[in-house]
């Protein structure tokens, strides 16, 4: 089993994230020597989210178009929100040689404006791994 361990900090369960085009688009582009560079970001683990969300500026930087729309519950009621397909990786930026938890083709929601992180890691990713929180040691581990 591969593992990634991070400190639990006052802001929450924070992980390093890399985002790029979905694999079906990125791989052909890379084989021709083109395609965008990945975008590095900070993500917050959120077990209250069904789906991972990515900040719109990151999606725009990569030129990723919206391909789905669904509804979510906001403070003011149900609102339509855009979904995008990306490749997304959780990693330890201090030690990039460690295994990455990779999702080659993941449907993500556009993050609400004003959210204080770049990425919100939801249950769609968390259900692919084990999340072990060691409260007294102030660390958490993703096992996959």
């Amino acid at each position, binding site marked *: 089993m591969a593992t990634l361990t991070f400190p639990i900090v006052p802001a929450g369960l924070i992980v390093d994230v890399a985002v790029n085009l979905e694999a*079906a*688009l990125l791989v052909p582009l890379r084989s021709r020597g083109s395609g965008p560079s990945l975008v590095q970001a900070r993500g917050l683990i*959120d077990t*209250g*989210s*069904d*789906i*991972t*969300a990515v900040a719109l500026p990151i999606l725009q930087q990569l*030129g990723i*178009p*919206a*391909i*789905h*729309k*669904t*509804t*979510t*519950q*906001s*403070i003011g*009621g*149900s*609102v*339509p*929100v*855009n979904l995008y397909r990306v490749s997304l990786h959780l990693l330890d930026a201090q030690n990039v040689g460690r295994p990455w938890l990779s999702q080659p083709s993941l449907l993500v*929601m*556009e*993050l*609400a404006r*004003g*959210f*204080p992180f770049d990425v*919100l890691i*939801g249950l769609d990713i968390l259900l692919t791994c084990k999340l072990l929180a060691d409260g007294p040691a102030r660390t958490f581990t993703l096992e996959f």
Partner: protein
Amino acid sequence: MEEKGLNPVEILCRKAFDPSSARLLLPVERPTMHFTELPEDTSESPLATEWNFYRREVARLLSEGHEGRWVLIEGGQIIGVWDTENEADRVRLQRFAMQPVLLKQICVREPILRGGGYHRGWRR
């Protein structure tokens, strides 16, 4: 029940706890909304046109027996309807790789996804 080592408040609460009533409070199904209640997208965001077109067409698609199938919409036009997401997605990648198009499962009840920070009042 071994009470040794438990604090007095926990002992009191354990005695008062009624498991049968507690379970009634737990929602077990993901919330959904009927297709007639889908909110209009009044924003200028990508897919607003496609989403509002879908809202107008979904009753007809359902009446024609397309429930559970996947529709691909660009602007105010249905590109096609397929049995699986993979089939529809293949067409999306071939014809609309880097442009916004709506790939959507046709549902009577639409799942309401939790997430994205929309239900919280975040401040930087």
